[in-house]
């Protein structure tokens, strides 16, 4: 540390101050360039911003630059050399801090110190405006002007101002509707994409830089994307359920195989899609009685002798099944439906086909292990409960003759398809509820089998489906005569619940109703195209 060090400190502080000033300008210029870019993006409606963000974009880099300027390393040697140069001290300071061994050392240091005292720090390091400051101001002005051109209401007429106000109101609604999805933590990639688009749409509405028709079009596009996503999610969910069903089928087939019965898994799958009719309960009872008889005789259908342990276990399981069966109750609606169904000639013909198939299935099959595992018992109980629910749903569906005829036709087609599968397929018709165990199957003559009903399985837990945003409608302000603004935004239709009716069945009806509404001019003129576009998109998706 030389004699000059204390005096040099004030110069060092001044240099840091000047550096901070320069750093502020440099950082601010960089920020201004960013702000200018952002303002341009905002102007062209690519990426919106607001005043505070623009200001921060400039100020944050500016202050960072200033901080860097303050903290930048400052060597005493460089400072001395710089002061020598700026203060015209003719290298007195540089020589002094060099500490050279010379007879002139002491007098030279005094000379340097005296010279330094005469120099004013503010004079040699003035705080002045540089090119960077000019660039900062210019960039800031251009960015602000660009932003104002896109956002200032001063440049709008009254109609445009009114439109903007309405769109801003809509933005608040979108914000409310989209909030659950936006706040959701574990979003899927599709949900993230949708959330981003919703955010972008909300921002666009907030900025109110869209024209109302553009806003409508974007809303429509968003709805379409949401629908596409819902369809996609539904397909995936269906695949998952099919996989689960396949696993269940395999388990059942294994159980049957353990009893010496080879069952085609496809057949079981078809059977499980179809609820067992009410009179199947009687058939189940018959099967139980039949197995009881086998139990009493100590032999199965093929004359094989049962062990004592098997007999006890079989007896216990049959008691449980009888108990479950006794709890099966059908509503009057179901009983009426079944009676009406049984009176149909086509239905009787169908049942004959089923009977034949069952005979084929029962021939050549031998039971080996009549007992069931605990899990299998639970599955059977569960299936009995499901059967009750499905029958209720079927009764709701088959309210008129036309629906019943369509149902029978579908059943017939399904059975024909099953027959094409060979003799192995036939065996399953009477085995849906494990008849060899005494559980009643479809029975003779009155078995009902349901196939390909096109019903979408109802998920018990609505949250197990991926797309979960609630479908909602956002209603805008209704105008009086055809100039109303109406924005509809909805989430994926598969969110939270599944439609139980395939839209391909109702699409034509809905479209017809919509077209009738259009004809009656119930829809504002500027919304008619949107309605048509919507149904066109649905039709494309349905195809």
């Amino acid at each position, binding site marked *: 540390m030389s004699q000059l060090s204390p005096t040099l400190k004030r110069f060092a502080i001044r*240099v840091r101050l*000047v*550096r901070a000033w*320069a750093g502020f300008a440099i950082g601010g210029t960089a920020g201004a360039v960013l702000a200018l870019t952002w303002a341009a993006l905002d102007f062209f409606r690519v990426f919106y911003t607001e005043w505070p963000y623009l200001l921060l974009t400039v100020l944050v880099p500016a202050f960072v630059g200033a901080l860097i300027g303050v903290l930048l390393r*400052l*060597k005493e*040697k*460089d*400072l001395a*050399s*710089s002061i020598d*140069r*700026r203060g015209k001290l*003719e*290298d*007195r300071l*540089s*020589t*002094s801090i*060099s500490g*050279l061994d*010379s*007879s*002139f*050392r*002491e*007098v*030279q240091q005094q*000379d*340097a110190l005296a010279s330094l005292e005469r120099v004013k720090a503010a004079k040699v*390091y003035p705080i002045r405006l540089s090119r960077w400051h000019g660039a900062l101001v210019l960039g800031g002005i251009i960015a602000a002007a660009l932003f104002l051109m896109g956002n200032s209401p001063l440049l709008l007429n009254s109609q445009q101002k009114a439109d903007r106000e309405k769109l801003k109101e809509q933005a608040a609604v979108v914000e409310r509707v989209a909030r659950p999805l936006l706040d959701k933590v574990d979003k899927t990639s599709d949900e993230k994409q949708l959330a981003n688009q919703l955010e972008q749409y909300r921002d666009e509405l907030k900025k109110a830089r869209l024209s109302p028709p553009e806003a409508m079009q974007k809303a429509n596009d968003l709805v379409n994307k949401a629908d596409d996503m819902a369809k996609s999610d539904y397909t995936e969910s269906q695949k998952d359920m099919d996989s689960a069903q396949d696993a269940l089928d395999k388990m059942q087939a294994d159980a049957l195989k353990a009893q010496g019965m080879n069952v085609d898994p496809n057949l079981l799958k078809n059977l499980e899609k179809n609820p067992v009719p009410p009179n199947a309960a009687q058939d189940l009872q018959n099967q139980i009685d039949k197995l009881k008889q086998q139990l009493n005789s100590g032999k199965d259908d093929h004359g094989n002798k049962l062990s004592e342990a098997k007999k006890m276990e079989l007896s216990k399981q049959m008691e449980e099944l009888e108990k479950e069966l006794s709890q099966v109750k059908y509503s009057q609606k179901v009983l009426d439906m079944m009676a009406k169904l049984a009176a149909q000639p086509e239905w009787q013909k169908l049942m004959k086909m089923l009977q034949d198939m069952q005979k084929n299935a029962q021939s050549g099959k031998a039971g080996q292990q009549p007992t069931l595992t605990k899990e299998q018992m639970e599955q059977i109980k569960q299936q009995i409960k499901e059967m009750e629910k499905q029958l209720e749903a079927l009764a709701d569906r088959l309210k008129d003759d036309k629906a019943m005829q369509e149902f029978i036709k579908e059943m017939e087609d399904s059975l024909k398809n099953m027959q094409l599968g060979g003799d192995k397929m036939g065996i399953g018709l009477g085995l849906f509820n494990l008849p060899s165990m005494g559980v009643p199957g479809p029975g003779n003559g009155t078995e009902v089998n349901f196939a390909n009903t096109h019903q979408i399985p109802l998920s018990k837990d609505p949250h197990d489906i991926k797309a979960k945003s609630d479908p909602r409608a956002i209603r805008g302000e209704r105008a009086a005569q055809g100039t109303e603004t109406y924005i509809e935004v909805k989430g994926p239709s598969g969110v939270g619940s599944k439609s139980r009716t395939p839209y391909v069945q109702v699409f034509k009806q809905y479209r017809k109703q919509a077209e009738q509404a259009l004809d009656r001019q119930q829809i504002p003129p500027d919304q008619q195209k949107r309605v048509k576009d919507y149904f066109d998109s649905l039709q494309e998706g349905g195809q």
Partner: protein
Amino acid sequence: MSEQKAQWFRDTFNSVRTEVRKAIVGQEDIVEGVLIGLAANGNVLLEGMPGLGKTLLVRSLSQALHLSFNRIQFTPDLMPADVTGTNILADTGAGSKGFEFRRGPIFANLILADEINRATPKTQSAMLEAMQERSVTVGGVRHVLEEPFLVMATQNPIEQEGTYPLPEAQLDRFLMKLLVPFPSRSELADIVTRTTGKDPSDLEPVAEKDAVLEMRKILREVPVAEPVLQYALSIVLATHPDSEGASDVAKRYIRFGSSPRGAQSIVTIGKAYALLAGRYNLAKEDLNKAVKPALRHRILLNFEAEADGMSPDRILSDVVEHAERADRDPIRV
């Protein structure tokens, strides 16, 4: 103490200069340069037209410093022995004869080698040992010259016919080369008045030879900071067309740059300037001032420079500017 020494240096220098100026009209820089050469223990090459007072300057200096002075007029037939001296057969007394060394004109404190480029290279080279080693060797015997010793050679820039330009090696031995300008009108009038009137009175000695030797010691004590030294080296390197730091003009017009003696000369002359300026350190400004006298005879120009009429001084000005540009403020705010 150091301050007093520096002050003594300045006082002595100024007193000698003042005394010399009684005889020499104008030529401030030349007088100062010669005195610096004397104080810096370097030889001086003067280039100028005849009749500009070069001889008078040296004689005046010798009178002011009370030093011995010899003038050697170089001609093509001048032999080395005519400069250094020779062994002659002389009566040693008692009737015997033997060789005795007869000193040449080189044996003096101040030597004026007038029109040195008119002598043959062989004779010119006889000056080399004296200028560099401060000694002459004759007949295998080395004869040391008395300090202080200063050779002040002159060259006539015109009448190049029948001359022998000094080789670079010899030029390098000169600390500085001073260009003697033609006096201004007022100076010329003063010269005419002084020389055509009554006989000028002789100058009074204001210092002794020991003072010159002491000045040389003081001069060497001036400290040089590292950035200043680097700046001096940058200047010298900038004269080399093949060096990384060469200026564009140097690359174009210089065939050979300055030798390391050039850097030594810049620093030494600069120190004298620093002391005369009242400073106790060498500054870059001193170096800039010393560049031309120290380097103008040390750079060898190419044909293109001669064709373009480029003088060494002009090129060196560009070299200095180049060095200043390269020497940036370490704190750029």
